[in-house]
């Protein structure tokens, strides 16, 4: 590439900025590792799974209850939000009259921007008492799943709709010309064509659900236990960090950074899965 002197100076400056940006990710990992090193250094990592409980002050570091809570809330939220999100996207793309669709989309965009602390607060003050009527204590795995599902629904709906929009118009006009009904057209043509976009929407929702802290912290009850029913209180990894960082010292603090690392690994796993899927579907 031929660049003038001015351009070359600019590129050097831009490269430095980009390097700084890229180094943030490396710094995040570096600090997660160095902060969790004290504990990883002198206890075996398997103790995070085999200790008989999570009592970090006494030196017991079993994070499996938190892991199971994180996975269960995420899974539950995905099971609820995925069909709703896809239906919502189908509604605004194929069913709603254009005027309604515009406003509906605006509503969904607005919801995607509502702070998680507000969702948590609403869950705590409105939803939890309702569920307590059904089955006390109200702050539970079930409440957390509902609130998380509400939170990731707009994310899934918006991503899926973007994928639907990218399906060429010719596909469905062709289907309509063949006399297919709207639903069979969606099932047979639109959804398969938008498949990779839909999967990436779900993965995006999943990584948001795994990493969500405030809403879950406020409505899940925060008892460290493996739940026996959906109405039991649970504590997720993220909530655990938020609750205990304030007073954690030494190995306890390091153990929290280990759970941060575990979160990162889970989220990266989801991204790689999404990437793999994209790669597979584009080379199939």
């Amino acid at each position, binding site marked *: 590439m031929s660049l003038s002197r001015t351009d070359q100076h600019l590129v050097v400056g831009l490269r430095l900025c980009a390097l700084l940006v890229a180094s943030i990710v490396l710094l995040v990992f570096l600090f997660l590792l160095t902060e969790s090193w004290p504990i990883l250094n002198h206890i075996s990592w398997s103790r995070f799974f085999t200790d008989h409980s999570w009592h970090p002050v006494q030196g017991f570091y079993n994070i499996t209850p938190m892991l199971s809570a994180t996975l269960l809330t995420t899974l539950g939220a995905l099971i609820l939000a995925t069909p709703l999100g896809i239906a919502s996207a189908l*509604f605004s793309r194929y069913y709603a009259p254009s005027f309604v669709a515009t406003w509906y989309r605006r509503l969904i965009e607005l919801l995607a921007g509502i702070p998680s602390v507000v969702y948590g607060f*609403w869950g705590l003050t409105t939803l939890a008492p309702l569920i307590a009527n059904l089955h006390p204590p109200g702050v539970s795995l079930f409440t957390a799943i509902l609130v998380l599902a509400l939170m990731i629904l707009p994310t899934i709906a918006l991503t899926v709709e973007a994928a639907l929009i990218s399906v060429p118009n010719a596909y469905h006009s062709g289907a309509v010309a063949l006399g297919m009904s709207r639903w069979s057209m969606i099932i047979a043509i639109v959804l398969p064509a938008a498949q990779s976009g839909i999967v990436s929407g779900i993965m995006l929702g999943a990584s948001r659900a795994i990493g969500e802290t405030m809403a879950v912290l406020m409505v899940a009850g925060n008892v460290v236990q493996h739940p026996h029913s959906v109405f039991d209180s649970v504590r997720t990894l993220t909530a655990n*960090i938020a609750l205990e960082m304030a007073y954690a010292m030494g190995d306890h603090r390091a153990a929290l950074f280990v759970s941060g690392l575990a979160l990162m690994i889970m989220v990266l796993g989801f991204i790689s899965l999404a990437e793999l899927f994209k790669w597979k579907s584009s080379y199939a």
Partner: protein
Amino acid sequence: MLKNKLATLLIYLVAVLITVTFICILADIIIHGFSQISWGYLTESPSDAGRAGGIAPIIVSTALIVFLAIIIAAPLGLATAILLTEFAQQKTIFAGFVERCLDVLASVPSIVFGLFGNAFFSLYLGLGFSILSGGLTLACMVLPILIRTAVEGLRATPDDYRFSAAALGITRTTALVHLLLPTAMPAIVAGLILGIGRAMAETAALIFTSGYVDRMPDSVFDSGRSLSIHIYDLSMNVAGGDSKAHAAALVLIVMLLIINAISMGLAKHWQKNRIISNEIII
């Protein structure tokens, strides 16, 4: 045909369900919050752990944190976006590396940013629990959003400008400053506004970086409580704080709505007056 009708019915039901649920959430907060809001609430300091008084210092802290985050992230983000779009058509290893890093950065959970900010900015750099620590942490968090929107904006500018400018012997720097950036400006500003919204909504990343202190901050090195942390604290740690928390939630949502409206208004304005606004910028 029955299947088709059933599906239509179900999809309409879902849309109605979603709309109703969200209207309920908004109505709940508006109804409970509105009665608490007064001029005094916005201009006074909180007292009795937030059960009484207002949120003036909290609004100031929030504004400072968000301002710092954007001021720090915007130039870095714009520079990175320019590098990725204008100087890396050839998929260089460096550009690929930066893009990969951004993908990962975008997916880091906010509580992990909180851990990182606490370890790096607060302790390692010795900034302590301060508005500056919080702003820096949020800057890291909003960078991927700013970069993605700016990249999209720059990619949407017509290549004709690049080729025509080059054919006139205009350097890329000049073309960027006078032609491409002004054309991409609406997208860049929309990204900034999105970033501001995200920063204002953030809680988890701030708890261990900017802290809980609800006094009026003297400088950016003071700890300051953001509006979102205020809501969290009132509802979880302060018995009888719910009504004030409703009010704070309403203030936060209204601020986000205003930001949203500004971005939509700007987008419309730019669409109408694109050429004239470019003239002003130059």
